[in-house]
């Protein structure tokens, strides 16, 4: 199993028709919510797509010309906001899908942003850091007309993007001739990065998991729900520690090398600390059994949270899942067909757009703190994650009950209704 998608903040995309596929489920939501076609039509295509040519001097002195894009999907709720993807194979339609996705995600989480996505066709493993830096800087300089704290805000796509975010902040600041750190989120702390930037997704998952377990009355008889977490990195590892501290029993956890399981619970703090020192879960010894990552997903537990890869649960293994609830800690962790099957079996699925909301909410907090020039304490950030993700959870649950639809459909309905409502109130300019 390949865990390369760990901590990517963007969903898996359909290779052939990413935008159309992404939109399909929201089209369905718009229909269910009886949104008039006119109110929804604007959302069927991005507001703007800017393509820029990015000439960059390579280390041998020759010039290469890269392609770069920024897609701005919808500005109904506020400034555009979304990731920058550095990828040699990226296509414009991928970015349309990501930008649209960000519109829905922001709306669902009550964050006053519209969706955007940027892409630069570069293989970061194939060029020197200096070339990567020049390419990113030139890309940002070319986009300067359409970005800014009140216009379009960049977020990282992967955990290792901190340096890239710093370059973006510096390039915009040099052009503005004053420090403009609110133009990008996910910055290093010293440049205005927020507290809980690193475990934002895990904190959001914690809020959702806690409320979902309470609602389903899971784990009452044993003093706390049991959970299996696939992934031990930024999302899975942090989540395991956090839930452990909330008196959940982490009964199973895995990394690329394999998993461990003990139905009475594992001391994950100890386990993860040792893993941090000396490698992999497969090498750990303790009061648990070793098993493959695939087998771990099929062990008994109250809640299963796959945080590592897309399609962790598919038609191949869905019928053997013994968990009472599945929370998508990774984007598209449950395939579309498996999703239907779990519903038939009466197993609740908390969808990625809601479960992974923590990173979006905390990126928004970073923007707020940068704008006022005042950094919040850890406790303030945690309290506010609880509020934003919790509110999103409540509105999804209430929508699901009212309309008798699964949580995923309910989440999409909440998002579409908010965006279409804002667009409608603003009306058409010119």
């Amino acid at each position, binding site marked *: 199993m390949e865990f390369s998608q760990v901590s990517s903040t963007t969903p898996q995309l359909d290779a052939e028709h990413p935008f159309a596929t992404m939109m399909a489920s929201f089209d369905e939501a718009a229909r269910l919510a009886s949104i008039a076609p*006119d109110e929804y*039509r*604007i959302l*069927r*295509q*991005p*507001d*703007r*797509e*800017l*393509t*820029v*040519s990015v*000439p*960059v*001097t390579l280390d041998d002195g*020759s*010039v*290469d*010309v890269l392609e770069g894009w920024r897609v701005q999907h919808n500005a109904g709720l506020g400034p555009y906001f979304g990731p920058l993807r550095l990828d040699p194979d990226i296509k414009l339609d991928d970015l349309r899908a990501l930008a649209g996705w960000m519109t829905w995600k922001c709306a669902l989480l009550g964050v006053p942003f519209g969706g955007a996505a940027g892409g630069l066709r570069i293989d970061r493993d194939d060029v020197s850091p200096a070339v990567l830096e*020049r390419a990113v*800087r*030139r890309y940002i*300089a*070319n986009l300067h*007309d*359409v970005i800014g704290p009140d216009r379009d805000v960049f977020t990282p796509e992967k955990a290792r993007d901190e340096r890239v975010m710093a370059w973006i902040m510096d*390039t915009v600041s040099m052009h503005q001739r004053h420090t403009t750190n609110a133009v990008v989120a996910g910055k290093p702390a010293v440049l205005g990065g927020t507290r809980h930037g690193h475990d934002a997704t895990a904190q959001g998952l914690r809020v959702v998991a806690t409320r979902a377990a309470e609602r389903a009355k899971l784990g009452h008889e044993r003093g706390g729900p049991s959970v299996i977490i696939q992934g031990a990195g930024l999302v899975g590892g942090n989540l395991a520690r956090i839930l452990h501290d909330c008196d959940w029993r982490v009964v199973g956890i895995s990394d690329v090398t394999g998993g461990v399981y003990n139905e009475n619970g594992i001391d994950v703090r100890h386990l993860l600390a040792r893993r941090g020192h000396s490698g992999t879960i497969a090498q750990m010894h303790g009061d648990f059994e070793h098993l493959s990552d695939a087998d771990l997903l099929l062990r008994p537990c109250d809640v299963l949270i796959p945080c590592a890869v897309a399609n962790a649960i598919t038609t191949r293994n869905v019928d053997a899942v013994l968990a009472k609830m599945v929370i998508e800690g990774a984007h598209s962790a449950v395939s579309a067909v498996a999703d239907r099957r779990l519903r038939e079996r009466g197993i609740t699925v908390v969808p990625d757009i809601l479960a992974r909301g923590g990173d979006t909410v905390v990126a928004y907090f970073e923007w707020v703190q940068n704008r006022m020039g005042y950094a919040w304490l850890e406790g303030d950030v945690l309290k506010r994650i609880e509020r934003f993700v919790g509110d999103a959870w409540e509105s999804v649950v209430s929508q699901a009950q009212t309309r008798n639809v699964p949580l995923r459909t309910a989440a999409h309905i909440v998002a579409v209704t908010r965006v279409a409502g804002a667009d409608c109130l603003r009306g*058409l*300019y*010119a």
Partner: protein
Amino acid sequence: MSTAPHVKAPMDEFNPFQAMAQRFDVAADRLGLDEGLREVLRTPDKELTVSIPITMDNGKLKVFTGYRVQHNFSRGPCKGGIRYAPDVHLDEVRALAAWMTWKCSVVDVPFGGGKGGVICDPRQLSKGELERITRRYTTGIMDLLGPDRDVPAPDVNTNEQTMAWLMDTWSMHVRRTDTAIVTGKPLALGGSKGRTEATGRGVMIVTREALKKLGLRPENARVVVQGSGNVGGIGAMLLAREGMKVVSISDIYGAIHNDKGLDVPDVLAYLKQHKKLEGYSKAEHIPSAAQLELDCDVLVPAATENQLTSKNAERIKAKLVVEGANGPTTVLADQILERRGVMVVPDILANAGGVTVSYFEWVQDRAGYFWTEEVVNSRLEHVITSSFASVEETARKYNTSLRIGAYILAVGRVATVYQMRGTYA
């Protein structure tokens, strides 16, 4: 004639953009440009796609798509038209933007190339709908526009009125009247005198200069003009005023011919009244295709692209072809005409009078001071004659056609500026 390497025939003889790209490659070869620089010059700097939601007259919402492409602004703000048509395509907009870069460079006006378009069918739209599309499109691309950044102009299915709306939308957003944002405006809103006839006047000037090179006196030159609109009609009138004998003019339905010379003002007056040449009694009527092969000294294709092709180039009798339209001669026809010793004044030089006076409009708007028609015309005269001389000199230096000479001059100027400025960041 020349020993210049021939442009390789494009895959599709009738694709004028492929033809332009290949002429660019030949010029780049002759200039010895390295691959990185070529890639920079081939690739548009920026391309913006905007969604244009409009309330239609029936109250329904409709979403149109618009583009603005900025090909290269090394030499100055981008300059280029905005077209409204159902078949607007990003690829075409890209190619037209590049075309503008070379055109501005040939006549040495300090602009780079740009182009824009909205996919719509203006015949199906009310004036109010067109205005709303124009205003919303302008708002969408506004971040890229500006008198010092990108200055649009009219193109297919857009006109003075469209430019006035664009100027007003921009001015409302910047909260001051800013006429230099767009050219091709009505005279009352900062337009330039002499703009309407500028392209035709440029055609006349290069024809006169080319005849000098060929050693032909204007009064002995018999001219065939394909087209009778802004370029062909006005061009024909100005050529006649220079003493040349205009023996044939055409519209989209057919052509008229009189070997003793047409009374051009009379023809244009008839056309204005009747909307077509049909029924004009003081000339014989001939089919369009036959017009190009008439016995004459000068042929001015001023209508549309792909008129002189591998199919008819052998039968062209003119000694001089002046391209009033964009891309009327295919690459294959170029080769045949060159072998037969026919001089071709290429489009990027021959019809650059329009962009030159657009540049003058921008200068006047910036200055807030407007020139007399005589000043506009004499400055246009200066720009076009000196550009013709530079192109001719370049062609001689590189022992090639005027067309390739014009591309070498244009591409070389942009490349030099790019290298001096260097690659930012």
